[in-house]
């Protein structure tokens, strides 16, 4: 049985693949979306517990997705962790202002990502 569910939203195939692997390794159910629209589509289909959301995305960027999520009452329970570029404090501030729960800067430590996602899982026992 899955311990929780994660939606990975990143257009970099290497990152998406790696995050998918890392999250599956934690026993989470994982889906991957490669752009902002696909992310919203995936949310409409089924709401995960946590969304790992890259800022720079094709079609609709991460801020846009974040804003849409927060404007949709039935998605209230979704926790959003934004993946931002290194050293762009403005990106982090903007993400948090638009309703993200947390952010992780790229490049990221695999350890940190796992810890952070577990922390936001509603059933996090660890």
């Amino acid at each position: 049985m899955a311990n929780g569910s994660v939606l990975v939203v990143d257009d970099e195939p290497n990152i998406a693949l790696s995050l998918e692997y890392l999250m599956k390794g934690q026993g989470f159910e994982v889906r991957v979306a490669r752009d902002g629209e696909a992310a919203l589509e995936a949310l409409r289909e089924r709401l995960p517990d946590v969304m790992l959301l890259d800022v720079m995305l094709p079609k609709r960027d991460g801020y846009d997705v974040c804003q849409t999520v927060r404007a949709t009452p039935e998605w209230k329970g979704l926790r959003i962790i934004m993946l931002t570029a290194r050293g762009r404090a403005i990106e982090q501030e903007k993400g948090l202002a638009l309703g993200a729960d947390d952010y992780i800067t790229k490049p990221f430590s695999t350890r940190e990502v796992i810890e952070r996602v577990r922390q936001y899982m509603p059933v996090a026992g660890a």
Partner: protein
Amino acid sequence: MNERGVPLLYGALALAAFALAFAAARHVAPAGGMLAGVAAGAAGAAAVGAAWQAGQRFATKPARRLARGIRAVLESRGPDAGLSATTPAPLLADLPEAIDGLVTALRATRREARKAAQAEAARVDAQKTWLEAILQALAEGVFVCNRQHRIMLYNAAAVELVRAPDAVGLGRGLGDVLALAPLRHSLGRLEARHAEDPDAPAELSAPFVCTSLDRSRMFHGRMALLIDPGGGVSGYLVTLVDISGELALLARGDALRRALTRDLRGMVGNLRAAAETMATFPEMPAPDRAAFERVVLDESERISASLDTLGAEIRGHMLGRWPMADIYVADLLKLLEPALAEIGVRATLVGMPLWVHGDSLSLLQALEVLVRRIHQLTGATAFDIEPMLGDRRVYLDIEWEGAPIPAGELERWLELPCAEEGESQLLRDVLERHGSEPWSKPAARPGHAVLRLPLLAPERAQFEPQSSRTPARPEFYDFGLLREHQGDAALAARKLRDLDYVVFDCETTGLQPAQGDEIIQIGAVRVVQGRILTGEGYERLVYPGRPIPPGSIKFHGVTDADVAGKPPIGEILPGFRAYAGEAVMVGHNAAFDMKFLSVKERATGVRFDNPVLDTMLISMMLDGAEEEHSLDVLCDRYGIAITGRHTALGDTIATAELMLRLFDRLEAKGLHTFGEVMAATNMAAELRHRGAIFAQGTE
């Protein structure tokens, strides 16, 4: 007397009994007349008839069954073939038991013979394993082919290289994966050379360049002839190296040279002309002079920008030229440990180890220099090294307790030699080659600092296991193919064991292809030169586009969840067609599976026009249609163990083994060629007939 004579004899006996009884009755009771005579005659005939019936039931039929069993045991060479359970036959006395004893003894002898053969084979096998290990470890792709370009041997690298795993296989044409023209040319040239001067071995290999069949990859190859003990050419060996990447680099190099010579020369020419003009005419009017000055400024700027771009390009160019490989960071750190321990420094790998791309030794030396310098500057003795995942790079974070390294200091370190002895490269050279420029900053942990070293991302996926189609112990060579004389004889004249077979089995949603039942799984295995190549097995689940009836699941075990997200049959069949190639397709009740394939022909355009062999029909021909010929019963009869019964691949391997046992028996009957078997089983007509039955009521 033959079997047909027996009923005749009994008929004659009955007639005689009738006549005798009739005469006797007339003699005993002449008054009784005709009626008593007829009655007595009939009773006599009936008694003979009953005797015949009893003889049939208790002697003839059991004897016939016994004879069939004995023939089967004799014709089958396997040690496990035994008599099927005998029915009671009082008239044969203890003959069945005696024969059973004989068969048991024969089985024991056969088993011993097989054990001896196996021991010998194991010894040969052990030596072969070494050769196989060496061959599989070679980075170059290796193919050995016969003169008809059919593959007799290949290694894992060859499969990787041509990137068409389903098309590489023993007995397959090399032309299925490579453009053959350069190989034909090289073979012709080498053969001519060999004919001219058979004693010049050095002349017997030649380099060539060829492309993959789809022209997406380019290879540098070398061909060597295989000379048999008689001095004839029996085939050739080719080694291949992928040079697609190098060609791209060469092209980039050419572009760089062009930019340097043509573009820069133009700009420098303009600059020089302007400068010379101003020098030659110092008194020129101010507006003219200003124009020339602008030319000098503009061209200088353009040259400077071009040099920057070229510099970056050249660095990138060098990046690709140095021999690099994917390196596991954990391995790198393990190698770093001893050198650091010497100076009392410990580096601990933190987090998940990742892969990077680079020159392992240079990177190791660079890391050592950096850690040593940090240690000297800050006094830190404990370092955490953590790989970080970026979009297009992997970063190594070296963290210690203390202050960050000032930028100027780090800049000076870049000019240090990377290794103590020999012609050492500078740290800057190594890092630039890896596209790396380190920087230092305070770490997230208070009181700690980090030096971040960007590195190249690996070519492989970070976490996914490298997929390798070639199993640990594959069947990747078969020199029996050397003896083959292909192309000079029709299929019918070829020996059964010389043909290539693809034994296959389809699991389906039901039994009626024309009424919407669909294939949900295809399993297949190739049999070449009488060997079952389980290492080249084929198994695909297929999305049927309809629910799988629960009733059928108990037969194949494939559920809706298993096929969800699998490709539909239209996407599977072209690949299976390529797998089947020109081989003879074999199935147990092949008409059924072929029908499922043929109903898809119109929709997919994929046509299976291979010759077809049905193991069930062969078995029927050998033992008579009245026996049972299901796969289970036949496997039991021939002592074949089925692993994974009713999975497509399990059934397929069992069918392949059955086919080989049936070949033994066919040969014992004097049926050696494909044509003879087709004729004896009336295979083509039977298959057509059975195919029509499967289509009945639907078309």
